[in-house]
């Protein structure tokens, strides 16, 4: 982590110092999270389309955003980012307005996946994976079935000290926003204050804030109920069938990770070809089968077996069920207020 941070620091410095053209201009550059597509996807694409693509990795949305903003999007052709960041790229004028005729495989997307609120009609982003945020718990240790966000925010005595919450601003705040019936994108001061007060109260009942190892804590029994993304809860379910995922009655957010082509890309045809390649069911389906994330690709999802859905019930959620939830949106100026509240929560005793 330290090394990682140093490298990132150097990358940031380099990004600021040199405005563009850091990466080879000859090849298509795709930036994605580590392990978020098939390890051989790039090779397969190169072979199938006679292109030369190269994969670079980013650890977080913010990291790739920093680089894209510093370079005005030069040096990258296709980036995988979560929907609020795709929205920001579009607002900054860095995202290519998509020509759907160059992406014939877009027909594989569920009709609902063309209606996402951050980009209705998919004018600048193509959804890659989508899902929900809810409660992941050990059904053999937790009494009854949790059905409310308050089961996490104000846990029963026997659960105190055995729950975790996501640490990332938007989801941490989102849990309390949903519990109180607010929008997950609220910028209302009074609502944000109520969210803060709730989460300060909740803090004393938590084992930890955890974004990365919560499912392992469930498996070991260190935690009994955690705030989780559905895909990550599946990792726990894969190891222990007593682990279950549920969406509280107050609802969830709908998160979507997307592919964006950069306006300043110098390899637009290859970039379109890459997006089209990923949307082929056999390529897009890899994410569902291997990393247990729902993909918005109808033929890809239809190939999942019944046993697979039975083992990971949340993989069987229909698109219209997902669409019932509110998407996280870019909150612009209010991001600073969000960060501040998170600092207030973490600084409280």
């Amino acid at each position, binding site marked *: *982590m*330290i090394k990682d*941070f140093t490298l*990132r*620091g150097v990358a*940031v*410095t380099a990004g*600021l*110092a040199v405005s563009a053209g850091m990466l080879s201009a000859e090849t298509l550059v795709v930036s994605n999270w580590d392990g978020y597509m098939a390890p051989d996807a790039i090779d397969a694409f190169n072979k199938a389309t006679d292109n030369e693509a190269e994969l670079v990795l980013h650890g*977080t949305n*913010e*990291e790739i*955003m*920093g680089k894209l*903003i*510093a370079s005005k999007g030069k040096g990258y052709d296709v980036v995988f980012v979560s929907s609020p960041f795709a929205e*920001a*790229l579009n*607002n*900054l004028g860095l995202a290519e307005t998509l020509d759907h005729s160059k992406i014939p495989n877009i027909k594989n997307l569920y009709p609902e996946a063309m209606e996402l609120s951050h980009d209705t009609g998919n004018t600048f982003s193509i959804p890659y994976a989508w899902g929900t945020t809810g409660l992941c718990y050990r059904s053999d240790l937790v009494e009854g079935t949790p059905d409310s966000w308050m089961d996490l925010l104000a846990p029963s005595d026997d659960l105190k*000290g055995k729950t*975790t919450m996501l*640490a*990332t*601003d938007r989801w941490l705040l989102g849990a309390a926003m949903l519990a109180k019936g607010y929008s997950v994108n609220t910028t209302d001061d009074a609502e944000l204050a109520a969210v803060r007060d709730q989460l300060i109260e909740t*803090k004393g009942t*938590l*084992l*930890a*804030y*955890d974004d990365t190892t919560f499912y392992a804590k469930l498996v*070991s*029994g*260190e935690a009994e109920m955690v705030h989780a993304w559905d895909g990550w809860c599946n990792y726990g379910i894969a190891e222990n069938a007593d682990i279950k995922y549920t969406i509280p009655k107050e609802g969830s957010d709908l998160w979507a990770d997307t592919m964006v082509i950069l306006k300043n890309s110098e390899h637009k045809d290859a970039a379109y070809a890459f997006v089209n390649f990923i949307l082929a069911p056999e390529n897009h389906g890899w994410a569902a089968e291997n990393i247990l994330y729902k993909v918005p690709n109808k033929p890809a999802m239809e190939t999942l077996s019944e046993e697979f859905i039975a083992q990971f019930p949340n993989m069987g959620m229909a698109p219209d069920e997902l669409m019932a939830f509110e998407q996280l949106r*870019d909150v*612009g*100026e209010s*991001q*600073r207020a*969000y*960060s*501040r509240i*998170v*600092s*207030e929560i*973490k*600084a409280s005793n």
Partner: protein
Amino acid sequence: MHWRIAPQIQARRMIDRKPLYLMTPALAWLTAFMVVPCLMILALAFFQRGIYGGIDYTFTLENIALVFDPLYANIFLKSAFIAGLSATIAVVIGYAAAFAIAAAPANRQAMLLFFAVLPFWSNYLVRTYAWIVMLNREGLIAGAAQWLGYDGELPKMLYTETAVVIGLVYNYLPFVILACYAPLSRLNPEIAEASRDLGGNGWTTFRRVILPMTVPGIATGFVFVFVLSIGNFVTPALLGGGQFQMIGNLVYAQFLTANDWPFGAALSMFLIAIMMGLLTLQTYASERASGAGREE
């Protein structure tokens, strides 16, 4: 008197004559990878955050003012408290260990020192995770307690402030041992003997003679642990379960989750200023101490 000053002047002249170009690679490296980035961070602190992240190049003092906001100022104070506590504990344990090593037979000292710094050869993260394995509710300590027949609920050990302090002390202890060992091993045993001859018992000898002469080592060890701890973000994140925000975590969050680089830059400048202030004080103090030692 002149025979004592002469070698110093001689030494100074020798430094002057040393070809400057020998230092050029080091200076170039420091300039390119430390001075320039630091100046960039400093400059960043005076601009505004862009609405979608990034930087809006409009001058503002808002970020600097925000550092003094009670919320963030308190996080600074809290970090300083945790760093100070860790440094104090590390000095007490480390000084005792260094004293024991310096008092050991000469042929064993190298081996003992080797064992003291051995953990340094493994990765910081691995060493920190080892504490997670030990302290967690299903971990080694809980397991050992159960094996010994204790079946009650143990207090929560991991993800507490105590766990963070344990992690910091453990990780930085070798610095203190090395810093304190140097002056302790150089102490002329005849000085302690003289003190005893003059009627000082063991404790008095230690308190009035040995301790004052090894203050520079203690100061160095303390400042090292303090400076490394106050900016640490890995240990509070892992052993504190994200529930304690130290200043390092706050800076990390501004750059990597809040996308508020200017505020992150303002916070880091203050952190660097605190560290530099302390290191300067420590250098000054140890120079004065060794200078005073020479005069005696």
